[in-house]
């Protein structure tokens, strides 16, 4: 589908939730080191698709997943794969920020600590680096050990991004990650995504077409559990091939 190397490769993916067939026979490759947006009407399965990438459906009781999801060639749904190792490769940014009930410093250090980094000097370096990368350092450097819940929502979301980056992922997943934020925080995060794509592959679920236009290189349009169209941003938004896509992006005016 694309010349760029595929970081995530989805093959014949079917997902059933509680008896409903949510995702149907999906085949798609997510390219490396770029931003891919998944768009589509509510309930089409965007978030479900995103969650299959890091197997977050494991915690839900009535979800059945069949097919393959290859990350760097490794099928993450193979029973033999070690899941925490896979999840380490991915950072997740949810719709609302969920700071862990600890200090700002501990939030960012949480991941590295779990994966074995114990020495304070090492952790200090990581915390500072990621807080700088998410443009949060200057705002919090004097209160690193205060509770993370005291930050504003925009700051909390950046903290969650820093936290996710701290484990050294290769892929960043964003699930409508700016929908709870004010415009200023939203644009900060969008700018961060554009900057980060040099080093990470980013997959974003969004229902804001303008955001998709601003930020992404590729767009996947999902409708009722199927991939209707896929291609470069410009092409999907300005000159879509499919009728359904045309209908959906009709509201988007450049």
């Amino acid at each position: 589908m694309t010349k760029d190397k595929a970081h995530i490769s989805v093959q014949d993916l079917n997902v059933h939730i509680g008896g409903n067939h949510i995702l149907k026979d999906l085949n798609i490759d997510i390219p490396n080191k770029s931003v891919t947006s998944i768009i589509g009407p509510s309930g089409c399965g965007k978030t479900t698709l995103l969650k299959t990438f890091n197997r977050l459906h494991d915690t839900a009781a009535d979800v059945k997943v069949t097919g393959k999801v290859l990350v760097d060639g490794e099928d993450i749904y193979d029973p033999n794969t070690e899941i925490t190792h896979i999840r380490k490769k991915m950072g997740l940014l949810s719709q609302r920020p969920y700071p862990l009930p600890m200090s700002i410093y501990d939030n960012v250090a949480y991941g590295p600590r779990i994966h074995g980094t114990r020495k304070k000097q090492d952790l200090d370096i990581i915390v500072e680096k990621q807080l700088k990368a998410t443009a949060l350092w200057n705002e919090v450097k004097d209160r690193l050990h205060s509770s993370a819940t005291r930050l504003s929502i925009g700051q909390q979301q950046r903290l969650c991004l820093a936290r996710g980056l701290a484990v050294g992922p290769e892929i960043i997943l964003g699930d409508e990650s700016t929908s709870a934020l004010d415009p200023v925080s939203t644009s900060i995060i969008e700018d961060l995504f554009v900057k980060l794509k040099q080093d990470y592959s980013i997959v974003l679920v969004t229902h804001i077409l303008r955001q998709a236009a601003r930020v992404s290189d590729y767009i996947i349009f999902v409708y009722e559990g199927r991939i209707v169209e896929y291609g470069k941003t410009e092409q999907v938004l300005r000159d879509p091939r499919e009728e359904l896509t045309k209908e959906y992006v009709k509201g988007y005016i450049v």
Partner: protein
Amino acid sequence: MRRRNLEELFFKFLMVLATLVVGGSFFLIVGTIFYKGAPYMTFDMLTKTPGGGFYIGKEGGILNAIIGSMYVAGGATILGLIISIPVAIYLNMYMDGKKFLSNTLRMVFDVLFGIPSIVYGAFGFLIMVYFGLRASLLGGIIAVTLLVIPILVRTLDEVIRTVPLELRDAALSLGSTRWETAKVVLRAIRPGIITAILISFGRAIGDVAAVLFTAGFSDNIPTSLHEPAATLPLAIFFQLGSPIEEVQGRGYASALILTIVVLIITILSELLVKKFYKHKS
């Protein structure tokens, strides 16, 4: 990574162990009582009053305590209902708009709920002394009523709250007074009232500390409110304290009787609660 998995496995093992202990204690306790008490269970136990000696003697049964407990628990529950139903209704239907006040009152009842029965017993004793009453059925009923009021108020309050506001509003909009609406509500929660009765009866029948100073003890079934009354828990306690092994054994049997009675009451009330809430949902 292996260390992390090992740690998880270790704690999972501990968790299962803990669950077995906590979940199994019920069976352990009831089982022990059955095991030790069954050999001493005779029909006489249920039908005769004790004979042969100082308080719990070598013969007879514990009919005095069984009836005595029924009187105390029954009397206390009835008195308790008379006071608690109006209170529960007042809290829910007559205090509209005064949310803070009604919640504070609820908190006070919660506090009353937490007061141990020995304090109610001591206070009941004070009241008896003040009024010149002797240790008697009446004294026991007073003390246990005090104990039971917070339980009833809390249960009834919860039950009344399940009545949808629309029902109350429907009655009110037909022009009924608040009291007439209350009567409608009460009829609607009849099974809930029965549950409350069962719960409070079960608590009342098993309590020792409240009747300890107030009800006295006797080998006979009380014929008037001013006679002392034997209660099951106290009977068990005295029997166990006896040096005669046979009497101790009968203590185990008495414990078995009490356990069975309370279990039946508890299970009945649980079933009623389930049936009641099935209606609601």
